[in-house]
């Protein structure tokens, strides 16, 4: 990796995985480096991949649905803002169970 390489970015794709680009190193739970000889990798977001943490396309068979739309992530964007109180994050679907 070049010292001038771009910093890593992680992008959420609708109903699909997370795409990691830039300068990154992917590690297993025990700290070993997962070799990925490419500039972009897709990380599983649906939990169904047989190759976790990598995506293998299983989200489509599982009909994984998360549109990652601006409205849906607004609470997350809020979360990232300093000073957000925990109870601002309360959601109906959590509280209703």
């Amino acid at each position: 990796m070049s010292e001038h390489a771009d910093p890593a970015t992680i992008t959420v794709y609708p109903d699909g995985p997370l795409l990691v680009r830039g300068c990154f190193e992917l590690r297993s739970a025990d700290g070993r480096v997962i070799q990925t000889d490419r500039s972009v990798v897709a990380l599983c977001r649906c939990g169904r991949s047989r190759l976790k943490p990598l995506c293998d396309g299983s989200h489509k068979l599982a009909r994984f649905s998360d549109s990652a739309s601006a409205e849906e992530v607004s609470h997350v964007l809020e979360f990232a803002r300093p000073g957000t109180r925990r109870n601002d994050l309360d959601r109906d679907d959590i509280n209703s169970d």
Partner: protein
Amino acid sequence: MTLQAGSHQTPSPVANPAGARSYDVSLHDQPVVLPPPRGQVSAALIGALQRSPGELTLGPELHWTGELETAALDEDLQLALWLSYELHYRGLAGVSDEWEWHPGLIRARLAWEDTLLASLALAVGTPDSMSESGVESVIARLNSIAARDDGPSLSRALMRDADAEQFREFLIHRSIYHLKEADPHSWAIPRMSGSVKAALVTIQADEYGSGRTGAMHAQLFRGLMRSWGLDTSYGHYLDLVPAVTLLSSNIISMFGINRRWRGALVGHLAMFEMTSSTPNSRYARGHRRLGGDDAAARFFDEHVVADAAHEQIAAHDLAGGLVAAEPALAGDVVFGASCAYFADEQFAIRLTERWSASQSSLRSVGGW
């Protein structure tokens, strides 16, 4: 080895003297040997190609006169198209490079393309009928095409049922494309710019192994073929593959060579990538079930992981990005994706039907 000054000892030959590079040309593809014709048009074309282009005018003998409904799967037409496109890739053995832009041949090819396009439109709908308003609806259309599950599943057949001979047949069909994997879609690179180009090049860089020869998908496929005891030279099996196999390649070449079809080319690539990960994981399981080795399975394993990322980039950043930049191409993008799905479906039908009847899916070679 050290040579002492003043000795008269003759140095032994040095294969790679300091400063000189050694080149591995063993993977440089050779032009494709002209196959036997499959009908009047390909016979006329093959006959012409063996002569000097300067002295020839081509006329009605290159006119294809079949029924439109049969064009996509017509042996004669698809071979003529495939040979005319191959002049732009690795070339044809014993055929003058000047044929590549021979006006008579280009005129004939444009007519064949019009026929193929009309035939495809009959099967999948016209680009105009597929005009979508906006990026989101184009991506939704791509997703719904990719999610269709109405034809026979070739990948499940290979995973569960195919015998070794059928698996070998599958690789023979696919060698027509995979030994030049990604090349037809690379025609799109000079036609794109900005973030759309960046998305395309991200995909293509993986296809070409990020510049490492052994990691190029075409070379991974070559290793896979070798592990199955197949001839790995480029175009070796041309005469054995039927029209439907040539159709898959011809559609991408047609969209690739003609800038006018850049939207369809991008839609085609998006559909390729969006329908790749799961089938490749099934091919890998079939390969291992039949005793295939892990090193050779890398071709499939690589596609599972790479295409899981590519499908997102291709649908959202490439196809979505192109439609955002050129909204008028929306219908072409969906058309290209539909054609990719159609060709894949026809290919699956051919192989699974033949295998169900205990027949080979390859051509029985002999006259026409």
